[in-house]
């Protein structure tokens, strides 16, 4: 059973969906954050697969930039979570409902 582009498609979709499920199921802000990283990575995987498929180097560079952005995001995001924990001593997102009108 040779590997085709569709296999990578399905795989990356599966990972993405698992990420979404995680974000929906968990209340821990850090876990949700990790699920987001998982989704980003699934997209990266797909990009690399397409790069391979079309012999296009640009896609790999995009993966590179996505990683850059993800790293920056994680830095800020974790800082926020730490900050939040310092205030309410919890990382439960259900406590954080200040956005309510």
């Amino acid at each position, binding site marked *: 059973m040779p590997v085709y582009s569709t296999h990578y498609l399905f795989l990356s979709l599966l990972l993405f969906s698992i990420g979404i499920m995680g*974000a*929906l199921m968990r209340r821990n802000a850090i876990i*949700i954050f990790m699920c987001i990283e998982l989704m980003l990575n699934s997209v990266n995987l797909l990009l690399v697969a397409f790069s391979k498929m079309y012999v296009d180097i640009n896609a790999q560079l995009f993966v590179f930039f996505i990683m850059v952005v993800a790293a920056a995001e994680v830095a800020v995001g974790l800082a926020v979570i730490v900050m939040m924990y310092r205030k309410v001593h919890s990382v439960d*997102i259900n406590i954080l409902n200040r*956005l*309510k*009108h």
Partner: protein
Amino acid sequence: MSQVVYLIPLFPLIGFLINGIFWNKMPKSVGGAIGTLAILASFIISLGIFFEVRSAAFHGPVIVNMFDFISSGNLNIPFAFQLDALSSLFLLIITGVGSLIHLYSTSYMHEDEGMVRYFAYLNLFVFSMLLLVLGANYLVMFIGWEGVGLCSYLLIGFWFKKRDYTNAAKKAFVMNRIGDLGFLVGMMLVIYYYGTLGYQELFSTLGGANAAVPSSVHSWIALCFFIGATGKSAQIPLYTWLPDAMAGPTPVSALIHAATMVTAGIYMIARSNALYNLTPGVLHVIAFIGLATAILAATIAIRQYDIKKVLAYSTVSQLGFMFLALGVGAYTTAVFHVMTHAFFKALLFLGSGSVIHAMGGEQDIRKMGGLGKHMPVTRTTFLIGCLAISGFPGLSGFFSKDEILANTFAHSSVLYIFGLLAAMMTAFYMFRLYFLTFSGTFRGTEEQHHHLHESPAAMTIPLMVLALLSVVGGYVGMPAVISHHNAFASFLGPVVKNFGVHHLAESTEWILMTLSVVVSVMMIGVAWSVNKKPQFAESTGFAKLLENKWYVDELYDAVITRPLNALSEFMDKYAERRGIDAVVNGVGKSVRWGSDRLRLLQSGQVGSYIFIMVIGMVILFTISFFWVR
């Protein structure tokens, strides 16, 4: 001479402008002089024109085009004047009687601070009336028609500090407007079916070759015009403004009642005789309404105590006579009565003005009496006026009224009997007025008694002139039994053609004449005997009904004014505020309400946000992949 016809309205207009612009800078006497001279100048030109029209060299009407007033598409209405027998006659009446009233006013109004303004209004009034009769088409007539309405508004509310007076002015204008609307609709019908408003064009095509116009249209037009006439000439149902119009200065009443304004309706119908000849049904309506007005107003006049109110109702009643004449097709007779009525009604009003002047503003005849001794000229002239209006033989009113009654008899004896009844009442209430005012003993205060005096010459001269005219004015149109040449009818003949008027046998006519003379003399006697020793008890029953004018004002108030006001209030409170506006605001409110509910979705729960986002994504993907393709 007829080419300078525009000068006739121009002089009063100039007088109006001078007095109107410098109303607060000009000395009173100068203002009065300008006003009077303007009308006098018009009168002189009118005289010239009258003789030209009368001369044998005059053929047909002369039309003087001034400029194009309204021209649009196929419609072209010039501002044009028309001169013929009818208009020249009215010119004479208006400017003649008008200048006498002006002369009288210079003295009567001399104490009033607004005298210059008064003369400005008066000139404008005469100007409007001159436009009305001079116009060569209905539009120019309408301009004058509304113009006299305006002036009556201004003059009735001349003493504008009194709310009642301005209310009366408003009432007069609005009632006139109701009639004017009828006139306007009539004009629109004429334009629609004939494409013109010019008398000449219209009357030459009426009912002739233009068979495409259905005959019911003529009735509609005639009826609409007649509605206009009821407003201006104070017929049922639009007459109630006229007695209220007594709020104005007395000479104004004379002007409104004798020379201008109220005669406009008669003039219009006489002018449109070609149209009315096509619509006998409408003529019946006119006759009926005229007679009903004559009787109704006469009954009211019997129980009035205000000297001017009596005269006002007598005018309404006399106008009813004129409409009766019109209704039986005797147009020239109606115009004849307009003329004689102008003389004696102006005389009576000016005489009453003289009385009021002497009484220091008192108008209640219960407080008068015995004035004859103090004011011989006024008394004599007033007596002549009363005799004339009562139809005493040999005076002008006798001829015209007799002609009306004779024509009515020829038309229908039932109408005649009622007409005679109205004439009887006329004689009664006029002499009741006369006796209460001038004979007997004085019933007013001592101070008033002391103040009694004959009016100055500027007031008595017009009285004397008018008295003279009231006596001789009738001899231009003597009935067939006396003289076979009716100068008046033959003068108007080319313009106004009577319709369906039968000639009575000479013997019948003599009988009718004798009957009416006997009746009126009898009523004078009755009036004398009743009012020899006047008693003014609180009236009851029928008398009270009459004294309160059949409660017509109250009826109108209850049936029209109040429901209308209530409707307006209702509309304002409910239809507008709670109806339409509420719907509009309701849209806004429901949006706000909806947002309030939707806002609750914003729970602040990050988890549910993610949930909703995912569900939204699913829906969007589903739509984009499986529906839109």
